[in-house]
């Protein structure tokens, strides 16, 4: 377990403030946030490189706040590897290795064994990352901290190495914390996602939760939510939620039917959001487009015209203008072709009440 309790640290003029989150033992945590948000400083504070000025850090059940880095039982891999240029590749991997066998195994698993004959200075950025990963894993740490460790790898190698890291994480029961800019990677790898900005942890939870239920408009926009609408919340206390088909369990748990008005649009959702101003977030992939009004159970349906159609490989982003409000939908390029979507074409954009998240 890695547990930060109101952890504070200072690195130059940058401050990490009251950072709290927990990555359970054996879980894979991902730290996401804009550049300069303090992701690397957070890892360095957990590693003990940057001293904590306040708060507590627990590694498993031990208070590690004041422990020296070498006593924390963790490995740290920086984005640039920081290989020791005065040593050979093999010596780098063996540096601090639990045993010669552990070094050999780590080198083999990350494909760094093929690089042992080459001088460190001659390695490419991606190769350096492989050696740095092998060096950290060869120590057989209990915790591993990874600062964008796959960023210099080509897509194929990235997939292989990512899989290997995940496999070792599972096999050795490692508690892992990885910084990434790649939201797909965060979703693929993470059991826990921590969103950091300006040295503060704005939100933490399962990646599903963080991505689908961002705590603020800023987080929603940072995480790439395409539809963030400002508006007003009204609780429909007296309305029988007959339109909340399949969502009655949420109501039973104290959620209420809510009407959200944003300009000419009125959306319906469920939640426990207080009455007043707020933001509605609808992810593009939740919006279904159809030439006619769909027959399904979606409560929110809006008639509009396609104002923009952008194809991004296998996916298409379609912007539908609904009375001057743009709604962005994401669908496969194939679906877009089947629907014969084109600019100016009238369509119905629909989404379920549960697809609307208020913040």
């Amino acid at each position, binding site marked *: 377990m890695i547990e930060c309790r109101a952890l504070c640290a200072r690195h130059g003029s940058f401050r990490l403030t009251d950072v709290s989150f927990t990555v359970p033992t054996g879980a894979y945590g991902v730290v996401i946030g804009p550049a300069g948000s303090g992701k690397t400083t957070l890892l360095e504070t957990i*590693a003990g490189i940057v001293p904590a000025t306040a708060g507590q850090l627990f590694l498993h059940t031990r208070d590690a706040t004041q422990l020296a880095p070498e006593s924390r039982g*963790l*490995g*740290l891999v*920086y984005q*640039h590897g920081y290989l020791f*240029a005065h040593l050979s590749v093999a010596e780098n991997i063996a540096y601090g290795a639990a045993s010669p066998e552990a070094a050999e195994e780590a080198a083999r698993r990350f494909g760094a064994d093929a690089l042992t004959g080459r001088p460190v*200075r001659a390695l490419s950025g991606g190769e350096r990352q492989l050696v740095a990963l092998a060096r950290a894993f060869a120590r057989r740490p209990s915790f591993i901290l990874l600062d964008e460790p796959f960023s210099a790898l080509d897509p194929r190698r990235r997939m292989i190495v990512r899989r290997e890291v995940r496999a070792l994480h599972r096999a050795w029961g490692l508690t892992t914390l990885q910084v990434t800019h790649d939201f797909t990677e965060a979703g693929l790898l993470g059991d826990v996602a921590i969103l950091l900005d300006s040295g503060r942890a704005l939100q933490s939870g399962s990646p599903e939760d963080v991505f689908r239920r961002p705590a603020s408009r800023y987080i929603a926009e940072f995480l790439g939510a395409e539809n963030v609408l400002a508006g007003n919340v009204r609780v429909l206390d007296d309305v029988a939620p007959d339109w909340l088909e399949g969502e009655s369990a949420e109501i039973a748990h104290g959620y209420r039917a809510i009407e959200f008005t944003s300009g000419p649009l009125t959306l319906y959702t469920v939640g426990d959001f207080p009455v007043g101003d707020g933001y509605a977030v609808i992810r593009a992939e939740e919006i279904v487009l159809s030439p006619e009004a769909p027959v399904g159970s979606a409560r929110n349906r809006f008639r509009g015209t396609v104002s923009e159609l952008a194809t991004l490989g296998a996916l298409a982003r379609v912007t539908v203008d609904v009375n001057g409000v743009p709604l962005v939908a994401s669908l496969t390029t194939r679906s877009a072709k089947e629907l014969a979507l084109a600019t100016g074409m009238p369509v119905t954009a629909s989404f379920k009440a549960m697809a609307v998240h208020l913040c």
Partner: protein
Amino acid sequence: MPTATTQSTPSRAPQRIAAVFAALASSLLLLFLAVPIGKLVVSGGAAGIRQLASDAELRGALSLTAVTATVATLLGVLGGTPLAYVLARRDFRGRAVLSALLDLPLLIPHPVAGIALLLLLGRESALGGVLLGAGLRVVGTPLGIVAAMLFVAAPLFISGAREAFARVSPRYEAVARTLGDSPWRAFARVTLPLSRRGLIASAVVMWARAVSEFGAIVVLTYNPKVASVLSYDRFTSFGLREALPVAAVLALLALIPLTALRTLRGADEEVAP
């Protein structure tokens, strides 16, 4: 197209003039720096080398210069390395003041440095008295030469070593720490080897500066004579003709650290992560 030609022609002329002016100024400066030393070596080099065989005082002065400069450099490296490391790595109140203090010996006239050292280490001073009591006479001995060399040349080592440490990202040490090293071990196994070239180059610069020192030494220890003092002594006592071979040998001696520096810099590479 004709428009483009008419536009570009007037803008190129001042650039050409500036380039010619820059080349001329650089060439003149280069000649000014190289010619006197070249002429000195050409005029007196051969005689100086021949004189080495017959002139025991010159041989003695040269070996005294080399030994005292080496001792001063060793002392400078020993005390300056931790200081340079702290200045490169730690952020503390008063760091700027400390840096300025360390640069001060480079800025004051060297005879003034000699006078300052005389005040501190002379027999009249408290420290000088204590040292004399312990059997250590500084003024007028090789110890005085070492003190003078250390005072004027150590700041060069500290400055260079600080730069060498600063070029090695502290993240190398961070990684070494997570791989089980204590701070000392990480320094010895990672930082020191990675900054080695810069440290050696700084030590060579310090040694060369110590060898060429005159002003502070002449105040503290005129006798026994180091090479620079001997060269001055022969010039004032016997004139240019006698001083020339000694001066030429000193100039040739400077080629040793120069060659060492060139070799080090040639092999130097950026410490990339």
